[in-house]
């Protein structure tokens, strides 16, 4: 039986802040195995995040809307700049790209069902488009990734939008991996690979190398699909200001910025925790880039979708207030499906984990039936019930964002703006360029 930290402290024992028990265990594991740790999920360390921001709400100087009767819009249009058929979404919360392969077919179907029920989009991943997903998704964004697994022009034409992926928040600059446990006959067939091998994905696209090439690549995709679809460009948050500028110059209709809290199905722990920047640090950089190019919040402009650690309607509202047009959720959507639910506590324990801690998405043994290709384990997830939970969650996120927006006097959630917020920490104030609460001070900009 382990002792609670308070008991240890009362006995005069002091845990090292530098070498805490998690760190000690990691060193011991590395020394024991000689191999680095791979896991799913996103960054787990404490980072500056949306909790470091607060809304001010209306009072004398602002006029609030009545919470239960006055309209507060939530719809967004994405990609009207060039596409003949832009996306019209009912809510500004979308489902982020997650591959069939990383997720089960049932999980992809459930995400599609949940998104469709609430009038929003879901996204494929590095593994191609499945019929389950296309069939149950009203708006489906088709990811175009470096390895092009399962990529074909028929699916491009069946998509509602195309997202060119340059990176993701959990691993900017890194390629993907799908370990052999999950490379089933179906997954292998879709990816043109032998069954059961560890599948490595490239980190660079095979047929273009820089922003000038990307311009031509975007035009190729437009030509192939007869200029019907919006083209997104997704980047992992790192040098966001420059990346967004280059993406817009290359012709992106929508830019997706994924912060380091964004999830992954399988990446080295060292990558997840040490590469990239937090979501709140990336958004202002992206907005500045769009503003300087004159395409921010314009009908024919370039929309910004933000992802990476969005958990509730307050996070959604804060993203929008910082300047995003919409957000995307991944990890939170999996939790809504049933990931890390206490009902699987015994199964998690048998795997050496615990409900609330499970992150071994690469292993293919997920008792919740989400991150697995095992036909028996997949039965744990009912795609209809799962879809309903995702839809419920999306509705709650939207209603919570509306609640905040009304309190700030906004008739549409996208009318939220930076001046509706204050920062709780100096770090958050510096990153978001929002004043520290109770002051007018933004680090680096003027005085107290």
């Amino acid at each position: 039986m382990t002792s609670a930290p308070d008991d240890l402290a009362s006995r005069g024992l002091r845990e090292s802040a530098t070498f805490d028990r998690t760190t000690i265990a990691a060193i011991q594991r590395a020394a024991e195995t000689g191999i680095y740790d791979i896991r799913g999920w996103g960054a787990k360390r404490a980072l500056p995040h949306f909790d470091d921001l607060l809304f001010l709400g209306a009072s004398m100087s602002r006029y609030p809307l009545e919470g239960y009767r006055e309209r507060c819009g939530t719809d967004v249009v994405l990609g009207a700049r060039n596409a003949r058929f832009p996306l019209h979404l009912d809510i500004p919360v979308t489902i982020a790209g997650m591959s069939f392969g990383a997720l089960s077919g049932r999980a992809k179907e459930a995400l599609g069902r949940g998104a469709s029920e609430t009038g929003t989009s879901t996204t494929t991943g590095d593994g191609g488009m499945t019929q389950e997903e296309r069939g149950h998704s009203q708006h489906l964004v088709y990811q175009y990734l470096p390895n092009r697994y399962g990529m074909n022009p028929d699916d491009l034409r069946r998509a509602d939008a195309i997202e060119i992926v340059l990176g993701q928040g959990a691993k900017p600059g890194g390629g993907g991996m799908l370990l052999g446990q999950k490379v089933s006959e179906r997954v292998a067939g879709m990816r043109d690979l032998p069954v059961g091998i560890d599948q490595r994905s490239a980190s660079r696209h095979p047929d273009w190398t820089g922003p000038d090439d990307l311009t031509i690549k975007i035009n190729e995709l437009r030509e192939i699909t007869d200029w019907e679809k919006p083209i997104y460009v997704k980047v992992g948050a790192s040098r966001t200001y420059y990346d967004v500028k280059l993406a817009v110059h290359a012709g992106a209709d929508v830019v997706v910025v994924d912060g380091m809290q964004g999830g992954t199905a399988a990446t080295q722990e060292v990558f997840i925790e040490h590469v990239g920047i937090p979501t709140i640090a990336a958004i202002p950089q992206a907005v500045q880039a769009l503003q300087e190019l004159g395409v921010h919040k314009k009908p024919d402009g370039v929309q910004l979708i933000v992802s990476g650690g969005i958990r509730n309607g307050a996070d959604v509202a804060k993203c929008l207030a910082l300047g995003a047009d919409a957000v995307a959720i991944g990890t939170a959507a999996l939790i809504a499906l049933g990931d890390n639910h206490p009902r699987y506590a015994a199964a998690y324990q048998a795997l050496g984990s615990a409900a609330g801690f499970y992150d071994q998405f690469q292993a293919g043994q997920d008792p919740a039936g989400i991150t697995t290709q095992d036909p028996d384990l997949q039965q744990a997830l009912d795609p209809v019930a799962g879809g309903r939970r995702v839809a419920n969650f999306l509705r709650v996120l939207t209603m919570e964002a509306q609640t905040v927006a009304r309190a700030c006097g906004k008739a549409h959630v996208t009318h939220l703006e930076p001046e509706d917020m204050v920062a709780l920490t100096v770090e958050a104030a510096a990153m978001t360029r929002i004043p520290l609460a109770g002051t007018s001070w933004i680090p680096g900009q003027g005085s107290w």
Partner: protein
Amino acid sequence: MSTTFDLATTPLREVNAALHAPGISGDFVIGNPQGAHNVAVGLDAPVSVTVEGHVGYYAAGMNQRADVTIRGNAGTGLAENMMSGTVHVTGNASQSAGATGRGGLLVVDGDAAARCGISLKGLDVVVGGSVGHMSAFMAQRGRMVVRGDAGDALGDSIYEARLYVRGRVQSLGADCEPKEMRAEHLEELADLLKTAGFEEDDPASYTRYGSARTLYHFHSDNTY
């Protein structure tokens, strides 16, 4: 009787849109490409298209069913991700020719630059001359024939694609090794050479390369 488009006077968008028309068939000629990018991309019909001149990036990209001939040189990403049909370039091709190609036949009469056949997924590529470095990088499926030499790191991280090279290979990439030429390989190579118009070559003068399969399980997982 063929239909002719002149890219000097007709916008590329109109040309590609015409070639995407439902139920289209027949022969088409595209004149004055002058290095234009994205010529004849996304075709999905049993048509014959001849491009009279040099083209830029992604010519015949994602081709399905069409037979495309380019009388000139081709830029980066020639016939990328092609699914079926044939693409034939009479000159040279720049880098990433046939990238991620899934089916059909790509023939380059001259040389192909770096990364030819990168991430190959089922396409057959026949190069009359030599190929540059990193060719067949991570090639998964399909076959690549090189009548000349290959540059550095041929077949790096290759999966199950089969490579046939007649000339010198500057160096092999990680996990790529020479393989025995068994009767079935001589036979399939003879077929490929014949289909591509190089039937005078002796298949026995080629060396086969493929995966040593040492990277298939890279022992980096840790689930504890």
